[in-house]
């Protein structure tokens, strides 16, 4: 029950071995060159240029190709040529598995179709994000997968509320957060009232009764749900080309305000009696 990548799915199904997958990944690593290596292999840049770009990237957050443009190392046309070459020569994991004889060519389409069916429940459904919010599609992914985790893992019955821009997030019985770093700098916040906290704990601990559990364990279960949700969000985001890492979850004690140089979004989950909210606090990069 999670967002997966094809190699992982095949291992879990017993179709390929760990060694088979590692051979295929090694082949991918040798074929799928990074932008700088590809540009060098095409004779467009030198090792010294690559060092210059890496030095410049230490002080400015720019992709390798864009930095080459900024430094006048490549023209826009040359950058496009490199990107096109990367696209044409890209070896997908399924193709790599066939090349290293981990799966048969004639079986690849069948495995891909089964994988697609397995992952269909994680296809992202549209969520309206206020205009002007950067990386809106990423927050659609975050909201939709959060809803799905509450439905499938916690078995919570709720109605999706409209997403709104907020300046602060109110206190609740449990508020926990995870920091996202990389293409975006953001804080994912989960806020739940006591009834939902206990429902989450029952689901995570797989116990019928959590009334005697200490608060520490109940809050920990909420953090674990957030960890699962964020792990799935990152997996989906990576499939879409984002590069994101997550930090371990933390408990939030103080009220949360939107970053001065960014914005914050609230995704309420309406239930009969409880208060459940997902907040995304986005720093401007």
């Amino acid at each position, binding site marked *: 029950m*999670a967002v997966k990548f094809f190699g*992982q799915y095949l291992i879990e199904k017993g179709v390929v071995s760990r060694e088979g*997958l590692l051979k295929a990944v090694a082949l991918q690593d040798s074929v799928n060159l990074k932008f700088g290596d590809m540009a060098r292999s095409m004779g467009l840049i030198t090792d010294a240029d690559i060092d210059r770009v890496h030095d410049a990237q230490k002080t400015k957050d720019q992709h390798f190709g864009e930095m080459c443009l900024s430094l006048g190392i490549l023209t826009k046309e040359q950058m496009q040529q490199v990107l096109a070459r990367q696209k044409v020569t890209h070896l997908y994991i399924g193709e790599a598995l066939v090349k290293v004889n981990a799966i048969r060519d004639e079986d690849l389409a069948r495995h891909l179709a089964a994988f697609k069916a397995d992952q269909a429940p994680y296809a992202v459904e549209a969520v309206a994000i206020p205009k002007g919010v950067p990386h809106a599609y990423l927050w659609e992914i975050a909201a939709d997968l959060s809803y799905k985790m509450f439905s499938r893992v916690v078995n919570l019955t709720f109605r999706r509320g409209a997403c709104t821009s907020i300046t602060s997030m109110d206190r609740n019985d449990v508020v926990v957060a995870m920091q996202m770093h990389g293409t975006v700098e953001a804080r994912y916040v989960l806020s739940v009232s006591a009834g939902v906290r206990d429902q989450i704990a029952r689901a995570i601990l797989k116990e019928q009764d959590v009334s005697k559990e200490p608060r520490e364990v109940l809050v920990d279960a909420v953090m674990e749900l957030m960890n699962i949700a964020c792990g799935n969000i*990152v997996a*989906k985001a*990576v499939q879409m080309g984002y590069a994101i890492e997550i930090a*371990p979850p933390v408990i939030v004690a103080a009220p949360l305000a939107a970053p001065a140089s960014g914005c914050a979004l609230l995704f309420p989950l309406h239930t009969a009696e409880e208060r459940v909210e997902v907040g995304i606090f986005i720093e401007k990069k």
Partner: protein
Amino acid sequence: MKKKVIIVDDSIAVARQLEKIIAESDEFEVLAQARNGAEAIKLYQGKKPDIVCMDMNMPLMDGLTALRTLLALDRSAKVVMITSLGGVGDKYTEALKLGARDVISKPFQPEDVLRVLRAL
């Protein structure tokens, strides 16, 4: 004889879940638990378990750093990573490249955990 397992996870909830799954099996038993990678290394050296089940995303020392250190100490260590990031191809394959025997994605079912442990 039951195989001895160390659980390494900063989440009490996950550690409890794993402990229950392992304790209810006839083949494995939980020897000890650690809350981060640094604790896991100390514990491993002292207890010499058959298997380590370790989270990837932990404070103080993350799971991949601990995996690298453990395998530098004992190339034959059998480490299974448990993670919510199993769907991130680079993380999954990095764990395998470093020498993890398998990767279990969260949320997991008891049969997922036992299938992996039995295969070691």
